[in-house]
């Protein structure tokens, strides 16, 4: 269905919600970094929200369609063209054999684009998911990012593709992309008074932090917190630094894990267990924003919310996917 002519920076097969249920065996969920863009892209082409698509980080890539079909491009705007002509995002596009799709560099905002194909990308299901865990080199397409010459088939889809091309997302539902991402987060499990000081949590929830160049699918590393962050001099039986703790399971995806004085958001391919504190968790409904943060350029801020707020946001998201006016045409 789709053949890679230029593999760009990092193109991966990802689905949603990923490989769920194996954290206790050391396997992260993986899955799309921006699950909202992938799910919307799938709905536009008539797939289930969680179908596998291509996650394109950084852009600079080119594909050739080896079969006719219907696709959508969502997420970051990388000025996509087909056979040299601009094509819109958030819209179902009919493609024919031989068409060439090109994506340029990332633009002003957003780091990952998603390519959904009617039917979904067909790679083997491994432990319940088609997602690639890049960190562990398994799942997806041979456990790796795509390279020149890879040709990925699409699964057959139910019913006819007639009338799907041209269908688009109601513009009012297009997610807003920015360079400073506000992430709603719930404090815990390691917080005041025993691990982090009140002033430390205040700092965390009021400071705009730049995303490190080291941000990847396992962890989005941020800027260091000051020494006053901590409420304790050391990690007790966990180790010498106050960020140390006797190994515990991580609240992954979305955990804010602090190693030394450096906070990282653990996501997708991140570790499931380890010996460092987790001071907060980005709410499920905001996980998508992390994947759009541009390493070495964008910033994040954290807003403290309650568990009830997080649940309400999930329900709001569910309602959006079911809204009658979600798609036009």
């Amino acid at each position, binding site marked *: 269905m789709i053949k890679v002519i230029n593999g760009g*920076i*990092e193109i991966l097969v990802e689905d949603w919600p990923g490989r769920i249920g194996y954290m206790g065996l050391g396997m992260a969920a993986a899955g799309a970094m921006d699950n909202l863009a992938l799910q919307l892209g799938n709905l536009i082409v008539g797939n289930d929200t969680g179908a596998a698509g291509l996650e394109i*980080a*950084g852009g*600079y890539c080119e594909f050739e369609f080896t079969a006719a079909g219907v696709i959508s491009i969502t997420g970051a705007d990388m000025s996509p063209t087909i056979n040299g002509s601009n094509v819109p995002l958030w819209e179902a596009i009919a493609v024919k054999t031989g068409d060439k799709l090109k994506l340029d*560099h*990332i633009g002003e905002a957003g780091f990952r684009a998603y390519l959904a194909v009617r039917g979904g990308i067909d790679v083997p299901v491994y432990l319940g998911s088609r997602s690639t865990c890049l960190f562990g080199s398994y799942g997806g397409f041979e456990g790796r990012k795509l390279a020149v010459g890879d040709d990925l088939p699409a699964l057959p889809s139910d019913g006819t593709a007639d009338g799907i091309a041209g269908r688009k997302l109601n513009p009012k539902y297009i997610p807003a992309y920015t360079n400073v991402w506000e992430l709603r987060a719930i404090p815990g499990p390691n917080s005041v008074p025993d691990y982090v000081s009140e002033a430390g949590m205040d700092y965390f929830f009021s400071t705009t932090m730049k995303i490190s*160049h*080291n*941000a*990847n*699918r396992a962890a989005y590393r941020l800027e260091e917190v000051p020494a006053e962050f901590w409420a304790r001099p050391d990690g007790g039986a966990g180790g010498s630094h106050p960020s140390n703790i006797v190994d515990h399971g991580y609240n992954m995806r979305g955990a804010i894990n602090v190693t030394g004085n450096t906070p990282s958001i653990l996501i997708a391919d991140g570790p499931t267990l380890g010996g460092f504190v987790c001071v907060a968790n980005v709410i499920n409904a905001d996980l998508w924003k992390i994947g759009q943060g*541009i*390493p*070495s*350029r964008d910033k994040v801020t954290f807003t403290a919310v309650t568990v009830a707020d997080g649940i309400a946001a999930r329900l709001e998201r569910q309602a959006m996917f079911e809204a009658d006016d979600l798609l036009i045409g």
Partner: protein
Amino acid sequence: MEFVLKAHMPGLVARVVVEVGEKVEKNQELAVINCMKTEMSCLSPEAGVIKEILVAEWDEMDIGSDMIILEG
């Protein structure tokens, strides 16, 4: 004609692998940017001779940052 190698990814310069005066081919690796804990090759857009190197190790790049000037 002069042309410029521009950064194709944000990140830190890991190293520059050519020297001023060196003759290079199109698509030859001139420098490496470190991003997402991965090394990304910066390839020469054209054949030419290295005229000036504008970056050093650990310099922070944004997309489109000028890195190396070549004479074609």
